[in-house]
């Protein structure tokens, strides 16, 4: 069975305590055809993901982009919480900051951030997100296909492929 690539838009969760920057990042992401949810704190981000409760969550987030300097939970704290969570550790996380502090940048990248953007974020930065999202989607599809192959017996699989019209 051929797995078609999903046609749905990627869903990005943006986290920034500043209204201006939230508005900006949301516009940049929407211009790049992403579905966007913007929240103003790490706590709200975790709530949105459903990390704080044990209920099943329906929301699917494909990438999290977060400001570093935020009151309460910093972007780094949020990054760590995501990467330590069994349910969400595979969601790519990108951090951003208006301060160019190499030690900060390195720490985020070493602890699991895919990218670190310096603010103000540009469209060219947002363009760098797509490979991280495509890689995850392809990986997910490959995993699903492998899982399906394991369920179906080899003989039946062969018969199925013979019936297929490969376009």
């Amino acid at each position: 069975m051929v797995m078609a690539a999903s046609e749905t838009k990627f869903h990005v969760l943006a986290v920034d305590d500043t209204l201006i920057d939230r508005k900006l990042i949301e516009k940049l992401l929407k211009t790049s055809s992403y579905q966007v949810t913007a929240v103003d704190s790490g706590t709200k981000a975790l709530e949105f993901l459903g990390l704080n409760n044990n209920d099943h969550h329906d929301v699917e987030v494909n990438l999290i982009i977060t400001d570093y300097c935020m009151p309460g939970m910093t972007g780094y704290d949020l990054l760590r919480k995501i990467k330590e969570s069994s349910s969400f550790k595979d969601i790519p996380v990108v951090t951003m900051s208006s301060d160019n502090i190499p030690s900060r940048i390195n720490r985020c990248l070493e602890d699991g951030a895919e990218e670190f953007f310096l603010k103000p974020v540009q469209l060219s930065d947002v363009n760098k997100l797509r490979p991280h999202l495509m890689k995850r989607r392809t990986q997910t599809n490959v995993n699903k296909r492998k899982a399906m192959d394991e369920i179906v017996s080899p003989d039946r699989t062969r018969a199925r492929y013979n019936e297929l019209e490969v376009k």
Partner: protein
Amino acid sequence: MDLVQLQRQLVDYRTSLYHEGFLDEQFTQLQSLQDENNPDFVVEVVSLFFEDSERLLNELSKALEQQVIDFKRMDAQVHQLKGSSSSIGAHRVQKLCIVFRNYCEAQNVEGCLKCLQQVKHEYGIIKTKLESMFQLEQQILNAGGSIPV
């Protein structure tokens, strides 16, 4: 003034803002994000900048009037101001905020007071200039023209 003259005036005015270092390429980025779906995007973001700045400048003034000055809190506020000015391309304000933060870190009251005055001054200028620019744009739209890129 006819439409063509208005449009020319706008282009000249905008160009001068860049040449004189009031605005940087981030402002151009903002304009490029504006489209039919969001025709007021630039004005909305700049309005947020005005609100934010006025609030922060007030708080900074008050902070410097206190008996005991909370430099750490002031630094956080200047950081915010630096961030928002950088996000809209208000170049001179942003640059002054960097200097201001250095004075906060050094806990230099005189330096902070001087910087605050300078930031207020530059903020006043960029606010007036951007408002003038938006007014020109509105005049062009009212005359049935389109805003030149």
